[in-house]
């Protein structure tokens, strides 16, 4: 990727360890040039979350999905192997599969009727004798797979760059939190139909910040906090922490806002669920040991896996995927991840509880969306002004503790700072990061949960 002359004012991030300030240039959210760079660098050279294996449980199942603007087919072939193909006919580029999901052994292009097997092989070309009939030609016309595909605990990741490091290396400490989710229930987890698909008028990074931002919970979700309090649950910010997991990944540990079905009981879940939760907790202790069961069960997590996956282990368990469409527009897709073998009453309670909070029709997510859509509109106020130093957003909260080596709280902005430090590297802007004063040699990362 050549380094184009920069039109955005440097630097993108300013860390000042004398003033204990951390500032992000607002061009990061609105510049078309930055968006193009993100497409070319982040979205082309990083592992991306594609989907969950349980979305295509049976041979011949497929879904189509767009990642980094590229249309893809996510499918399981007749032999049961998972693939991700570019959804584009090798002949002249037509979108091959125009259904959003289904089951098929063959994908046929409607334009000239070339047909492909769901393992990518070219099956038939009408009037093939007009071509040089070598096997080489046929082989070169198979469906194009994404260069890399790896699966961790059912989460399918792809990369458009063959030279990315192994997936587990990229995931680092985030991998274990995904394992913890899979360990929640003895039979493992599965996705459900009923995908929340919506789009927001905001930059994708604002959605990441919002998810890693415990500071906004009480003011933004005032009405939801009121609902929790009325139902007998004491909402608190105590003992809640934010962790940088490295590689841009972040984790919020929450214990004081809202329970989780089958994990953390609250009065609003009712007596039957209390009994089920207790039994389940005892089973987990036996299966995982006391310490591990504690980390798996007793705290809520919001996990961000750079750049496009969010796991909300609150209320129930939502997988949220971000797809940037424009600097000021992001498509979001959200699935519910549930225990494979779940009591129907618990399942019904889970769905109601999750949906009551999470999603564009819930009692909380609309306020989050309102917040980052309002940021997107508001940051125009300082764009291109005579005082470019005003055109920054502040993310200094908690730096005073950070230099002391104290673990940052969930109401601090430490997880966001970890994200932005990684982002500025990943997006490859020269002089993107300006550091003043003495930077700590290391930042606190992760914790021992094993």
């Amino acid at each position, binding site marked *: 990727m050549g380094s184009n002359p920069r039109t955005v004012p440097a630097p993108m991030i300013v860390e000042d360890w004398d003033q204990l300030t951390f500032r992000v240039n607002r061009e990061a959210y609105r510049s078309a040039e930055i968006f193009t760079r993100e497409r070319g660098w982040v979205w082309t050279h990083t592992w991306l979350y594609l989907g969950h294996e349980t979305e295509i449980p049976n041979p011949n199942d497929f879904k189509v999905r767009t990642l980094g603007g590229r249309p893809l087919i996510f499918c399981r072939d007749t032999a049961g192997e998972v693939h991700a193909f570019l959804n584009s006919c090798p002949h002249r580029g037509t979108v091959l599969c125009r259904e959003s999901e289904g089951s098929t052994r063959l994908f046929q292009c409607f334009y000239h009727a070339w047909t492909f097997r769901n393992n990518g092989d070219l099956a038939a070309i009408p009037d093939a004798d007009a071509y040089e009939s070598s096997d080489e030609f046929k082989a070169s016309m198979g469906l194009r797979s994404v260069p890399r595909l790896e699966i961790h605990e059912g989460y399918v990741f792809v990369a458009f760059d063959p030279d990315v490091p192994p997936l587990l290396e990229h995931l680092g400490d985030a991998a274990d939190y995904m394992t913890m989710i899979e360990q929640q229930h003895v039979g493992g987890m599965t996705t459900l139909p*009923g995908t*929340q698909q919506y*789009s927001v008028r905001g930059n994708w990074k604002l959605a990441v910040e919002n998810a890693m931002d415990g500071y906004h919970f009480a003011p933004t979700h*005032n*009405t939801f906090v009121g609902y929790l309090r009325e139902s007998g649950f004491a909402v608190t910010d105590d003992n809640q922490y934010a962790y940088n997991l490295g590689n841009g990944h972040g984790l919020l540990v929450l214990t004081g806002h809202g329970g989780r079905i089958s994990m953390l009981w609250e009065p609003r879940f009712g007596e039957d669920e209390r009994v089920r939760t207790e039994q389940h907790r005892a089973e987990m202790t036996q299966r995982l040991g006391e310490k591990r069961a504690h980390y798996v069960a007793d705290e809520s997590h919001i996990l961000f896996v750079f750049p496009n996956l969010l796991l909300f282990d609150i209320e129930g368990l939502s997988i949220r995927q971000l797809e940037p469409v424009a600097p000021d527009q992001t498509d979001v897709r959200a699935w519910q991840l549930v225990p494979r073998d779940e009591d129907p009453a618990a399942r019904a309670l889970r*769905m*109601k509880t999750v949906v009551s909070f999470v999603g*564009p029709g819930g009692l909380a997510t609309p306020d989050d969306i309102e917040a980052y859509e309002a940021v997107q509109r508001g940051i125009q106020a300082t764009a291109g002004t005579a005082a470019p130093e005003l055109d920054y957003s502040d993310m200094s909260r908690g730096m005073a503790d950070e230099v002391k080596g104290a673990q940052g709280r969930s109401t601090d902005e430490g997880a966001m700072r970890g994200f932005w430090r990684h982002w500025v590297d990943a997006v490859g802007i020269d002089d993107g990061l300006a550091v003043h004063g003495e930077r700590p040699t290391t930042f606190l990362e992760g914790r021992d949960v094993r």
Partner: protein
Amino acid sequence: MTAITGTHSVHCGGRTITRPEVEDFLYSEADILDRWDYDGWLALFEPGARYEIPTTDYRPGWSPHETGSFVDDDWDLILARVKRLKSRKAHAENPHSRTHRLVSNVRLSEHTEDSFRVAASFVVHRARDGRFDAYVGWYEHVLVPTGDGLRFRLRRSILGHESLAAGARLSFIL
């Protein structure tokens, strides 16, 4: 969508309910919602009622208890939703969206002794933040006749969209 034939009236709860009566009920609900009269709206429900909006990939037969949805409100959540929408702290609707609703293609069918089903089409226009969005879809309601008129037992809005457009979050009643 479950096919509902275009009956002009149903016999339910010991009396005959005609399509104009149901149309009037739906029109006045639309008016109440467009005027942001949430107490008035709540009065159109029987206690214990439900409000549902399935996701845009919804297929007939899916149960909100077993699939993801946009809204899956039991009675407590309907009360919480109304309380929230009446609060100045419902940031996503402060200031309120302006909405304008059209209800059409109303069809009735008998369901049980004391309730009947209504299918209808809706178009809801919504102005907010300098934008204007349209929501289209179908209603699949269950109504009960009472001494005070009709009431919702189930209020269900099914979107015709492939996905929710940018800015089109469902922070208001659809």
